[in-house]
């Protein structure tokens, strides 16, 4: 066999051997056998001096070509083997993706906090700041300054918790648990010059025995605006915006004249019932409307009590119960659940 045939044979054998190599180790063995220092192709290169000078260029070319071909086949085979190995590793790593997630303790904000913050955010967007005040209030701030007549039933011990003081004989007292967050409005008006745009969320207290729709401690969210040129139309625009944002764009609003000592004119805001869309159903007791809050133009006397000139400034105020919003939003039937703190209840929000 001549050298040329020999090279051809080595190449053919080498390519076949490479194809056979099924592991990186086998592949390396083949490489060494053909292309290594002692490999058959290397041997031919080494024995080039035995080749006649006129044949040398041709043989050299052939050896180089064979070497290149073997090297690229080696690389190709290496790639195939690596791909197979990766595939195998991936196959071994298969898991049941339907197994449960790792337990991860996630806490929950109380639904009332969430509602309060949602409403706060809404009014912050309208330029309001958030204020609060003492829970134990004076009769002046809770009632008198807000235009509540001296003999108004809301002042009676049946409607207001009174707090013992050192000065009184502990039968009557001018200190009480606030029954509304309105005293915060009065404190704000007395402390700050208009323009006033504030939201006063907070706990309030009334001596109601807890039942499905009453709690002795609940959460009120009141708002107050005092500025130049504030109108009833502004009150409507603000509360329409609120009602749609909280209850849904498609809800309609209705303003019903009402009476509150703090405001004049006063009204209540209804939104159209979500369950029936306003045609009347069990949920809205056939009325098509759900009462949401009370509101009105701040009574002139209240502004005067706060040291604000009603000829220069006017304002509006509104107040709602966060628990009521929770009932309307989530269909909560018994508000006692809000203070039971059952983990199963809390974790739904």
């Amino acid at each position: 066999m001549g050298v040329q045939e020999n090279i051809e044979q080595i190449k053919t054998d080498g390519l076949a051997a490479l194809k056979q190599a099924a592991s990186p180790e086998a592949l390396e063995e083949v490489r060494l056998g053909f292309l290594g220092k002692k490999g058959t192709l290397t041997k031919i290169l080494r024995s080039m001096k035995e080749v006649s000078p006129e044949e040398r260029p041709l043989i050299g070319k052939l050896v180089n070509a064979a070497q290149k071909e073997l090297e690229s086949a080696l690389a190709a085979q290496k790639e195939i083997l690596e791909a197979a190995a990766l595939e195998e590793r991936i196959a071994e790593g298969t898991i049941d993706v339907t197994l449960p997630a790792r337990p991860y303790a996630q806490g929950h904000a109380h639904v009332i906090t969430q509602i309060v913050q949602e409403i706060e955010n809404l009014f912050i967007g309208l330029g309001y700041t958030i204020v609060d005040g003492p829970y134990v209030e004076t009769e002046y701030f809770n009632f008198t300054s807000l235009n509540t007549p001296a003999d108004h039933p809301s002042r009676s011990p049946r409607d207001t918790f009174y707090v013992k003081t050192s000065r009184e004989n502990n039968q009557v007292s001018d200190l009480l648990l606030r029954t509304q967050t309105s005293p915060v409005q009065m404190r704000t008006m007395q402390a700050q010059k208009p323009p006033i745009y504030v939201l006063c969320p907070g706990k309030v207290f009334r001596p109601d025995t807890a039942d499905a729709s009453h709690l002795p401690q609940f959460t009120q969210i009141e708002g107050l605006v005092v500025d130049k040129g504030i109108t009833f139309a502004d009150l409507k625009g603000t509360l329409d915006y609120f009602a749609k944002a909280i209850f849904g764009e498609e809800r309609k609003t209705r303003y019903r004249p009402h009476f509150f000592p703090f405001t004049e004119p006063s009204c209540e805001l209804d939104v159209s019932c979500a369950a029936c869309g306003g045609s009347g159903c069990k949920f809205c007791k056939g009325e098509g409307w759900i009462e949401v809050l009370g509101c009105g133009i701040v009574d002139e006397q209240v502004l005067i009590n706060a040291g604000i000139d009603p000829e220069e400034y006017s304002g509006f105020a509104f107040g709602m119960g966060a628990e009521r919003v929770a009932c309307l939003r989530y269909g909560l039937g018994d508000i006692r659940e809000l203070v039971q703190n059952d983990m199963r209840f809390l974790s739904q929000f």
Partner: protein
Amino acid sequence: MRVSLSWLKQLVDIDVSTDELVSRLIDTGTEVEAVETAGEALNHVVVGYVLTCEEHPNSDHLHVCTVDVGPVGGAGSKPAAPLTIVCGAPNVAAGQKVPVACVGAQLPGDFKIKKSKLRGVESNGMICSARELGLGQDHDGIMVLDQAAPLGQNIAEYLGISDTVLVCEITPNRPDCLSMRGFAKEVSAILGTPLHLAFQSPRNPHPGQSAQVDVEDPTTCPRYVARVIHNVQIGPSPAWLTQTLEAAGVRSINNVVDISNYVMLLTGQPLHTFDFDTYSHDEEGKAHVVVRRAHASEKIQTLDGIERTLAPDMLLITDGGKKPMALAGVMGGLDSEISDATTSVLLESAVFAPGMISKTSRDLQLVSEASLRYERGVDRTFCDTAADLACALLEELAGGEVESGVTDVYSEPYEAPTITLRYQRVRDITGAPITDDFMMAALTSLGCTCENASSKDATATVTPPPTRPDLTRECDLTEEILRLWGMNQVTATIPKGTNVAGKRTLEQLRAQTIAQKLIAFGASEAQTYCFAENTDKELLGNPDLPAPVELINPLTQDMRTMRRLMLPGLMRALQYNVARNITDVALFEQGRVFYANQESPENQPKEPCHLGFVLTGNRTPRAWNEHERAVDFYDAKAAIETITEALKIPKLRYKEADPATYPWLQPGKAALVYSKKTLLGWVGAVHPNACAAFAVTQEVIAAELDQDALLALAEPLQKSAIKPTQDQPAIKIDLALVVPDELDYTTIYQRITSAGGKYLESAVLFDVYTDATRVGEGKKSLAFTLTFRAPDRSLTSEEVAASVEKLTQKLERGLNAQVRAG
């Protein structure tokens, strides 16, 4: 207030449907809570006309009639074809007007009228007897109606037994609407329809004036009208009166009492009727009524049979100033009550001071129809007219002889306020383009007199009617105008609000951050009562706490103080869960606690905001890929430190809590938390005794921090400078120390960090190990990873080895520790 529509229609024209009326009332501020219909059972029963009446072909007693029932669906709709009806009554005849129950009617006794065949002839309804309609016992034959009965009219309507009652909520500012007179005026203003108000006087007064009245303090009783009626025959009231009262929700008693109730419902003037003969008479036969304040502890037995003990701020109607006959404006006395034996009546039509009545009513917990009206304000100009009307009715319905003499002590005459109304002001406040003319018309329709005072100033002078004590100021009139113009007609706008920007304060944002951190930690937010339970202090092991805030009128005696700690409320919430087999609980609450503070000028207490949390059960629950692990003290520390880290509060120190001061904490497993010199609160395992006291049998880890103190220590925003990150390589060395058991971590840690040299970046404890044989009795092994780094270059291992060597020597000498580094 229950408003009978048929009564209302006698007083004011109503030209709209009931639905429309209700919606107009609601839109103008009268809440209609319910619409009740009487006579509903007689739906589909109408007046029919018998066109023909033939013998039934297959029966000897039945008749086959064709009956015209007029337009179906009320007047104006298409007439229905005459109905064929089989009738068995002997008295049925062509040409009669009769009540016809059409198909679909449901008669009393749940008797449904259906299409049927009677002996082969189809019958499409029933001609009814009085008994079948539930209108009497007559069953001898069908009811034959008057020929004038309008064809097709509902039978209940025709017979006047159908009525619709509007159940209305009257706001406290509208005493006028607590009467039919006032309600009719309101409806007249809303609908713009005429009123028909006229009040009778007695036809045949008899000479005489047997009542003398003295009012001791006119401010308590501005007007008192007394009339005397003799020879009254007590008996039942006529049906119209009984029905009227019933529709209004008032039970009929006898003609005299019913008349006084009727006049009150109609006019809004509460009346009281005394048995005249229960008063002592003077030589002329006169009774002497004295209106005076009650003496302290004076007693009266009121109509409801209860003996009431009175106070000097209550007003009495007395016999000559001595014996109390009635609790003025609230309730009559039992002794002077009208009885079957009464023959002479002393009628009172008076006005009392609203504040006085409401206080009496409140103090005695006694509310009556009269007190409700007096509290809100009664029109004093009308006392005489109301008394006259009552006398006329007593004459007419009880055969009484009315004395012509009217005793009228009118010591505080009504003074009408005059209000200046600026038209533009109304537009400025409402933001609605209401015309001057509309304003005038609206106020006039409500009974105000309006004069255009000055066209230059565009103002009017308005005098409200005496029935409207709520109208005293311009803004009161603005409300009246707006509600009649229509609140829902006002175009909504948003305040222009120049120079206002909404925001939360830094403190509010940081309070939210605290909650967010605890939520991320895995705790859920609880909301508990600010009331404490009386047993709380004892359950906690009787700690010394600041003086509590106490309620005068607690809801229950168990809840008469305000909380001083968050822990009890959270323990109850935790127990609520554990009792329901929810054993992994992590709850927190941000809320106020209350400490009495009698030094403050208004006695207002201190109300610091506290942050409390309770943890129990597993921190990591049992799962296929997780080992379950019970929550422990160090979890609570982690929760606290996530907060202090977020708020950039200077490094915390923990000191063991003194069991005497914190008896609710387990000794040796609880700590006080300090930052700088401020005590922030406590953290620890709740004492097993306290757990047991709250009916919790598993370990509870709890903490309570002063949130106000946390926020005060939080780093100011401008100081939060960034520390540069280090790019130079670090060298890590593990260091194990064997030290005496009692040596605490903080001491060791401080020694390491102070002796580690300037390149020691951190020392992280990764193992704590005790083993008598391998570590030694009374000893423990602590292992740290030390990280060394220079900010400006790579440290050499020789430099680090030298630092470690120095550190080792210092620890061995200073702490008597055996040190092994590697």
